């Protein structure tokens, strides 16, 4: 097994509150892992471990190991900026910058020291194509990113993340604020991206988890209750709690 992401006996505390409890989990490269579970069970917290976004919150304490590509990403020597370049993130609420569409996608390249404008322009187009947005915005790249719809903004944020060629993509309910058509576009996109990326996606939409993911992890009150092949989790869950959640008996 050479998993690209793993955690070992991982605990996370928000001050006194024990939000993630002894989680051990492995994710294989070029797969999509869905994180499901009732609200407040720790899915977003878990996702934020892998690009160290939890660092921004005061009072967070972590024990155990988080490995990305076999490297302990909480080691003192680790460069967080470099980590975040290889582990991209798409947030629940679309959060484009108040800049032009073009500059939104170019931003990640610029802050990472790329100055070749030719390359940037090509990469912007490529990323927008990958995110299935190019045709809709190719004539208004100079327009403000605020002038496109919420669904388009979310795909713009995906393009923005792809433009710096991360290895891993973290998506926190990327489609929750979107209409069914935009949502379907994003699901298709996830399928496409799997070739080049490893993806972790948080979702409250179980059908969506079933459609897009290879593996599914069910969290409950900060614990990883069950983790395995999506098909198995959805058809023959081993744990009673998983079964109850899948069948909609609580959540």
């Amino acid at each position, binding site marked *: 097994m050479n998993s690209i992401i793993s955690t070992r006996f991982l605990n996370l505390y928000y001050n006194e509150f024990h939000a993630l409890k002894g989680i051990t989990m492995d994710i294989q490269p070029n797969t999509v892992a869905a994180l499901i579970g009732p609200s407040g069970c720790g899915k977003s917290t878990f996702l934020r471990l892998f690009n160290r976004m939890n660092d921004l919150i*005061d009072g967070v304490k972590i024990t155990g190991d988080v490995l990305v590509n076999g490297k302990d990403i909480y080691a003192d020597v680790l460069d967080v*900026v470099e980590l975040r370049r290889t582990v991209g993130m798409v*947030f629940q609420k679309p*959060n484009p910058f*108040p800049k032009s569409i073009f500059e939104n996608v170019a931003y990640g390249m610029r802050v*990472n020291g790329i100055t070749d404008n030719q390359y940037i322009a090509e990469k912007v187009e490529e990323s927008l194509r990958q995110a299935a947005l190019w045709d809709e915005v190719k004539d208004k790249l100079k327009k403000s990113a*605020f002038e496109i719809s919420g669904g388009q903004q979310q795909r713009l944020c995906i393009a923005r*993340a792809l433009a710096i060629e991360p290895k891993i993509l973290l998506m926190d309910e990327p489609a929750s604020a979107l209409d069914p058509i935009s949502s379907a576009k994003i699901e298709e996109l996830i399928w496409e991206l799997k070739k080049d990326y490893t993806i972790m996606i948080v979702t409250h939409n179980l059908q969506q988890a079933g459609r897009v993911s290879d593996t599914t992890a069910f969290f409950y009150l900060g614990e990883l209750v069950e983790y395995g092949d999506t098909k198995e989790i959805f058809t023959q869950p081993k744990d009673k709690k998983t079964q109850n959640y899948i069948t909609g008996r609580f959540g």
Partner: protein
Amino acid sequence: MIKFADNRASKQRKENLAFLTFRIMSYFVVVILAVIILFLLYNGARVISWDFITAMPAEGMTKGGIFPAIVGTLCLVAGSMVFAFPVGVLSAIYINEYAKDGLFKRFVKLMTNNLAGIPSIVFGLFGMSLFVNTLGFGDSILSGSLTLGLLTLPVVIRTTEEALRSVDNSFRQGSLALGATKLQTIRKVVLPISFPNIITGLILSIGRVSGETAPILFTVAAYFLPKLPHSIFDQVMALPYHLYVISTSGTNIEESRPMAYGTALVLIAFVLIMNIIANLLRRYFSKKVKMN
């Protein structure tokens, strides 16, 4: 079934009364402002002329213009901003973006708030002691600017801090998640977004600085100096102090009275123009931020 008391009429009456009270109060404010301006116009408008603005004072300040005072005030405003703007903005960035919530941050905030509450005459006294005497800058533009800068520093810090705080955290997270450093995030995302509000705060504090008398009293202001400054170590006249002088201790107070009103008009016009510029700039930059 609940039975609601049928008191619609009395409710309506109370509503009306409340609205009327609010409306009268707001009219009151407008009327006061209008009276002040009309009063100044009535008394001062006739001395306003091209000469008044561009000429030196003459004949014991009963004739001539207020040119050196205008130039002096402009120098002081510029000087104080050169000092207060970078210091204020940088410390606001530190407080809001870097300092962790804790004792130190609360302490710094408490101090800036207290600084804002200190009477301006105390700043004047402090400026005289530190800049004029201890540091040996003498009565000069430099001493006056630094004193005024200190006075307005808390305002700059507070407005900048508010401007930074109003930037949604999701922008910062989005930037950091793309591998931007904290400094890049501040420079390329946070500051451009908050820039319109920072500028507004700055210009409003310019308005305030231009009208202050007490801080310049012992640090720079000249009673009568009919020439322009050559360096930052020169003394200057200034509009608010000039106004004070010709209305209380001129050679002929009655005769220089219209000059005093004229000076007040110029001062008010300056502040007003600053406010208008602030608004225009804010609009211009908020549009620009979205496009850029």
